[in-house]
Each structure stands twice: as structure tokens, then as C-alpha cells.
């Protein structure tokens, strides 16, 4: 690859960095091939901090951040954004509150001004709390009828028993109904802080402009929060098969999810397991699992596996959408593939193919401003080093079949899985 085209890969020389006195980190990357910019930010405020009787509080709070501020009404806030063709959305994950925005490059300051105002001075207007509550409850009634969502909730509940990760980030109808303005204010005051905030901007702007805007809009944010992060102990992995099914009336198809733990993002097992997962349930039309469940047996429109990894836990999921008559057969086929996968090393051909795929995908994933910003955020969040993507090809190529087998055996076992499904069929409690 010539040096000109290497420039699109963010690295230590091209990522602009700034750490504010309040602890916030701001990173940026200039992509002058674009006319727009993408901003992403994370800070303390994830669902893990929800009190158990108020599940969904973090999600409720994050969603209210775009419902007006002390300086701007709901209408003014959105009028400014939408008139510029810009967007700014607040959301909530397990560990963090998130904000994501995009705008034409000429409107980059708008995103800084509105995100700063929303994070620091949300109005939490009672009228909008009521309206959002209705919207969230409507979303939950739709979720209750969604076979994929319900299978996912069931999997989380039994993979993370007695742990906040086992609870839905968007809560339950009863908990959302019980959340008051006072709960929201208290949560925001106690939790939201610039101390560990990371903001990344990618697009048609230069680093100096982003550093200046960061100083202007975020350097004066200083709060003394009492509840910072919370890291409850992750429960042990499943010791046997835990089979659960949620019956939903009037559906044609069952969504099936099987899962266990996978390595954390910073583990040396992460890369071997990622490549292994690609072979098992991603490559081509969904790897070995897609081949046996969809192509050879015609049982499902989709059948695949995925690995998700964070700083404190990772999960390895196997999913399929199948006719109710084929659920048990599909489970058997997937378990058999898992059994074979942890018994023998992957073939040289499989390994070469998946390595080649992952290396080839890197430039595609870094093509857009959103892709660039997310990549930079991962490097910062998981302390991978800003040269991670520059070294990525070497990292992939260094992984052996033996490493994949050994790492996979540590996490994956055909008889130690939570198997959750939702749709037609008798409830399994």
C-alpha cells in the first residue's frame, strides 16, 4: 500500500489529542475526502448503575438529554439541529452513556455547543419526561412482541444472573412507570461527569479547530459526582445447558440464541477467539454454522455466531431464526459444530481465508467518518495504542490454529451454554 493511501489509517501521527483539566479526552482525525463530520462520545452513565427497582433509569436519563436544556427548549434544540441537516442522539449502553452526532463540516461547532449544553444543563422538563415515558413504554410493548429481542433478554438474564448485565438497559414497563423526575435529576447529578469522558471527531476539520472547540465548550465543566463507575462481579460461566423458551402468541418463527462468555477486549485470547469465531459463524455465508444450518439443511434464513468484548466481560452468541418444528434440530446442529470446533484445530485453509478477510475488511471499516471515529474510540477506550490499526495486519497474521483452539477451549463448550428462544412453542421456565 503506498504511503498516500496509508494516510487514511489513523495512527499516532495523525490523531490529534487533547486532555482537558477536568479529565475529558478529545481526539480527532482529519478526513478531507468528506464534506461532513462525525462525533462520538462516551462517559459514565450506563445501565450498570441502575438501582434494581429502577431498571431503565440510565436509559431514560440519556434519552432525556435531547429533550431540551436550560438554555434551549425542545423545539429550539431540534430546530437548530434539523435546520442544519445535523443530528445528535444520546443513548445508553451497559457501561456508558453515549452521544453521536453528524453534521456538515461547516456546522461542527453546533454539535459541540448542543452536546455540551445537553450534558451539563439538561432541563428534564416534566412535560417531556411524561412524553418520553409514553414513548419508552410503547417501545417496550413492541419489544415484548419481538421474538429476537425477547430471546436476547432471556439469554442475558440467565448468562448474567443477579448482575445488572442480566437486566434490560431499556427497563421494564413497571420500572419505567416508577421513575420520577427526582430519580432522573439525582442520577444525572451523581453520575454524569467529564472525568472519564472521551470524545472523538472525524471528518473535514483540523485538529486545532477541534481542540479549540473542546476548550470552549467542555473545559469549564467541573462536577463532584458521588457515584462514579460500578463494577459488580461477573457471575461464573454456565456450568451446564440452561434451556429457556419464552412463548409469544401469533408468531410464525422462533428466534434462537445460544451463548456463553468470551474473552475481554484486552485479553490475549481476544484475537484468536475473534478469528476462530469468524471461521465458526461468520465467514462467507456465516461460517461453519451457516453452512450446516442454512446451506446444507435449509433450516434457517440466518444462522451465525458473534463475539462481543468489553473491558470486564465478553460474550459469544450463536443465533438462528427457525420454524418452530426445527428448533431442537438446529440446537443439536449448532452444538455439534461447537463440539467439533473445540476438539480439533481449524484447517490451514480456513485460517488463511479468515485472516485474509479480516485484513481486507480493515480499509472498508475505516472508510467513513463514523468508522474512523469508532476505531479511534476503541483504541483509546481499550488502551490498544494509537498504532493498533497500523499493526493490525501483523497482529492478525501472527495468530496460529493452535492459539485459536486453546483460547476457544477456555470459553466454549457444547454442554455449557445458555440456550434461549422466543416465539411459538411451549414456555420453558
Amino acid at each position, binding site marked *: *500500500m503506498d504511503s498516500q*493511501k496509508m494516510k*487514511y489509517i489513523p495512527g499516532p501521527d495523525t490523531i490529534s489529542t487533547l486532555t482537558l483539566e477536568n479529565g475529558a479526552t478529545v481526539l480527532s482525525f482529519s478526513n478531507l*475526502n*468528506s*464534506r*461532513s463530520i462525525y462525533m462520538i462520545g462516551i462517559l459514565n452513565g450506563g445501565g450498570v448503575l441502575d438501582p434494581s427497582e429502577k431498571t431503565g433509569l440510565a436509559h431514560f436519563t440519556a434519552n432525556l438529554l435531547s429533550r431540551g436544556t436550560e438554555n434551549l427548549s425542545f*423545539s429550539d434544540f*431540534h430546530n437548530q*439541529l*434539523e*435546520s*442544519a*441537516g445535523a*443530528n445528535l*442522539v444520546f443513548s445508553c449502553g451497559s457501561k456508558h452513556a453515549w452521544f453521536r452526532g*453528524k453534521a456538515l463540516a461547516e456546522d461542527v461547532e453546533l454539535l459541540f455547543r448542543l452536546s455540551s449544553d445537553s450534558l451539563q444543563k439538561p432541563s428534564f422538563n416534566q412535560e417531556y419526561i411524561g*412524553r418520553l415515558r*409514553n*414513548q419508552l*413504554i*410503547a*417501545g417496550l*410493548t413492541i419489544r*415484548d*412482541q419481538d421474538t429476537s429481542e425477547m430471546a436476547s433478554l432471556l439469554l442475558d438474564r440467565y448468562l448474567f444472573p443477579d448482575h445488572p448485565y442480566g437486566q434490560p438497559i431499556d427497563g421494564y414497563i413497571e420500572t419505567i412507570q416508577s421513575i420520577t423526575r427526582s430519580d432522573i435529576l439525582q442520577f444525572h447529578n451523581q453520575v454524569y461527569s467529564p472525568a472519564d469522558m472521551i470524545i472523538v471527531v472525524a471528518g473535514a476539520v483540523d485538529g486545532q479547530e477541534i481542540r479549540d472547540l473542546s476548550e470552549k465548550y467542555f473545559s469549564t465543566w467541573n462536577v463532584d459526582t458521588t457515584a462514579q463507575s460500578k463494577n459488580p462481579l461477573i457471575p461464573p460461566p454456565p456450568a451446564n445447558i440452561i434451556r429457556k423458551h419464552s412463548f*409469544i*402468541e*401469533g*408468531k*410464525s*418463527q422462533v428466534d434462537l440464541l445460544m451463548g456463553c462468555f468470551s474473552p475481554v477486549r484486552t485479553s490475549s485470547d481476544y484475537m484468536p477467539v475473534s478469528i476462530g469465531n469468524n471461521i465458526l459463524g461468520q*465467514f*462467507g*455465508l456465516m461460517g461453519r454454522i451457516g*453452512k450446516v444450518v*442454512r*446451506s*446444507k*439443511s*435449509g433450516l*434457517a*434464513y440466518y444462522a451465525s455466531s458473534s463475539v462481543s468484548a468489553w473491558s470486564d466481560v465478553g460474550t459469544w452468541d450463536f443465533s438462528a*431464526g*427457525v*420454524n418452530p418444528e426445527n428448533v431442537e434440530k438446529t440446537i443439536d446442529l449448532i452444538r455439534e459444530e461447537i463440539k467439533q470446533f473445540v476438539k480439533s484445530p481449524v484447517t490451514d485453509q480456513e485460517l*488463511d*481465508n479468515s485472516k*485474509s*478477510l479480516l*485484513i*481486507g*475488511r*480493515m*480499509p*472498508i471499516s*475505516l*472508510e*467513513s*467518518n463514523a468508522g474512523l471515529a469508532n476505531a479511534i474510540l476503541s483504541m483509546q477506550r481499550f488502551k490498544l495504542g494509537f498504532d493498533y490499526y497500523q499493526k493490525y495486519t501483523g497482529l492478525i497474521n501472527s495468530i496460529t490454529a493452535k492459539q485459536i483452539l486453546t483460547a476457544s477451549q477456555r470459553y466454549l463448550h457444547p454442554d455449557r451454554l445458555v440456550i434461549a428462544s422466543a416465539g411459538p412453542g411451549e414456555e420453558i421456565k
Partner: protein
Amino acid sequence: MNSLANKHILENGLTILTKEIHHAPLISHWIWYRVGSRNEIAGKTGVSHWVEHMQFKGTPKYPINVLDAAISKVGGYWNAMTYLDWTTYYETLPADKAPIAIDLEADRMVNSVFDKKETELERTVIISEREGNENDPMFRLGEATRSAAFDQHPYAQQVIGEMKDLRTISRNDLYNHYQQYYTPGNAVLAVAGDFKTEDLIKELTQKYADIPIRGVSPQIKVTPENEIGESEQITVEGHGDTVYVQISYRAPKATDDDFFSLVVLDSLLTGPASLSMFGGGGISNKTSRLYKKLVENDLSVNISGGLQATIDPFLYDILAITSPEKNTQLIIKSITEEIDRIQNNSVSQAEIDRAIKQAKALFAYGSESITNQAFWMGYSSMFADHTWFDTFISNLEKITKNQILSAAQRYLDPNHRIIGIYRPSPKENY
């Protein structure tokens, strides 16, 4: 960055569109066929989509296991989509691996096997896909509304097809459909990315020029439908605790000047939306007229609009989501009143200018990726030609207040629309 496309036509009729973009070492290769559910007859609905699935089942040169790995092993993304007017196959991959995509697509334009056993395996996969769709109340409502909105036009059918047809379509039905429509003269090849046009055209010519024009049998005659007849209200009942209200109006075809007025009207009523089916969206709609009227007044929790660029007049849909205790007739009345306000000249030039700025932003977002650039060239060729995309913004900028008024009066007529309501069944029926 947004250079115009180059157009080249081979002697066998294949149209090639290319656009050089050099910011990343990538190429996106799309082959588009002018065949979709518009080209289907009763009893064979879903055949175009099933043919698309069979194109992943191999050729003598690329047997199924080789085909499966060919693009993936070089790090590419590939997939296919079937819609009303078209079917498309795409690969985005490292630029130096482009010959693989070119060879593979040229090969499966004519040499797909359509093995009988594979056909039967795929039958259950597609039935499974349809069952997955049926799990969604909006699919069931959309299917019923669409069916009521057309008398005889194939747009009445869902792309995936009717379940009874999916059980009976044969291997020969699929193969005949493939032979009828997968021919160079019925295809457009759109390639964007890091290449030199002259070299690429040489390579494409080498691979595609010898593909013979097939003996295309007469295609079905499609008669466009204009105005929807008398207004009708249909109700679909099902499980759940959510109500969906969909109002469908006839929309102009993409090449009609009025289409651009509908784009602006959609933006005013339900917020800006990208016409791309392939990303590029993402502006909220909280200051749109119907969000203010319905959501801000607690009549619904959500409002959205849907406008498609199509060969024949299709539908403009407005969808509101609400809870069972809300008055659906009041929602319908409120939507009707807001449209009536527009029809009575309440649109300002500032509103139009704002809609155009939003459209420009959406285009900027959508143009970031090489994949999207190639998508747009081919996509717009399916219902117009590639210049439709290049001139989209300038056509929007020409829209006047009077044109919007006139389009609103003509297309958003309360006497010619379909109202569809999905309502939870009474609990005692569960």
C-alpha cells in the same frame, strides 16, 4: 470528490457506469438487473427474490463452496437485494482484488446451475425468511395496505412473495425467470473506487463483452396505476399491545417532475429521509409538521414517512405508532388537517429552503462511502438513468411553492387513499 459518472455501453447491450474515487484503496462493484416483483405474475410471486438466492448456489466455475469463499477471503463484503423494480448484487473489496468480483459476476450472469436439490433446500430458507417477516406487525399491515392500493399492478405484492407461491414455485420457474431477465441488455454495471477508468473498461469488456444476448421471451405487460380508487379503510388484527396507523397515497414515478415535490412534502410532513436503501440517512424529524401535531400532542409516539423511487407510480406512506387507548380516528383526522393546511398554501419559502439544506446534508453523508457512490449510479439507472442522482439536488432547488401546493393537492387527496390500521386482537381471542 463527487465527479460525474462515465458511461459506456457494450455491443451486447450491457451498460457500464464508472466513477473514480481515490481516497481509499477500495472498489465497489454492483451489477443491477431490471427485474423485481414488478415483473412477476400471480402464482409466481417471489420468484425474482428466490432467483437472487439461487445466484449464491454456484456455477460450474464457481461451485457453491468456492463461490461462498471467493469474495470473503479477500476481505470483501458482498450481498444482494431484490426490490420492486430491480435485483442487485454487490461486492466492496480491496481495489487490487476487483478482478475476482468482475469474474464472478460475469460468470453468474449466465452460468448459474439452479441445482434441484439446492432449490428445495432454499425453498425452506425462503419460507423461513417470510415467517420471520410475518413476526413483524408492520409487515402484515404493509402487505394488506399494499394489496388494497393496487387493482392489478404487481406492486400489490410483497417482494418475498405469497406463502402459497413459495410452496409451489418449481426449479424450472426459477431458471426460466433467470434466463429471461439475466441478460446483458437488461443489466447495468456500476463500479466506483480506486481504479483508472480506461484500464477498468478494458477489463470489464474482456469479461462481459462475450456474454450473448439471450432469447428474451416477451416480458409481462405492466399497466401503471395512477389515482387510487375510492378511499378505503382496512383493519388487520394481531397480537401485541401496539397500534399502527398507515395512510398510503399514490406517489408519482421517479421520473415525474412531481416526484421532487413529493420529496419536499415528505420532508415537511414527517422529516427528512434519505432515498437510499443503503445508508446515508440520519436526521431526526422532531420539528416536522406531523411530529409536532401528533407526537407533541401525545396522539402517537412516533411518526415516519416513506417515499420510494420507482418506475411506475407507487405509494407515499405515512406511519404513526400509538397505544390502544389512543383515538386512531383523531390521528387520521390530524394528519388530514395538516395536509389540508399545506394544500391551502401554508408552506413558506424558508421551509422549502430548509428541506433542501437537509437533503444536501443527507447526500453529503451518503456520499462518504465508495459503496454508496456505486449504489446510487446503478440504483438511479433502474428507474431513470444515472444522471438522476447527479441532478437530484439541483432538481430539488428548482421546486417552487406553487409546485408543492399543486403536488399536495394532486397526490395527498383524502378521497383517494388507503388507511390501514393494525390493532391488537381483543385479549379473549388470544
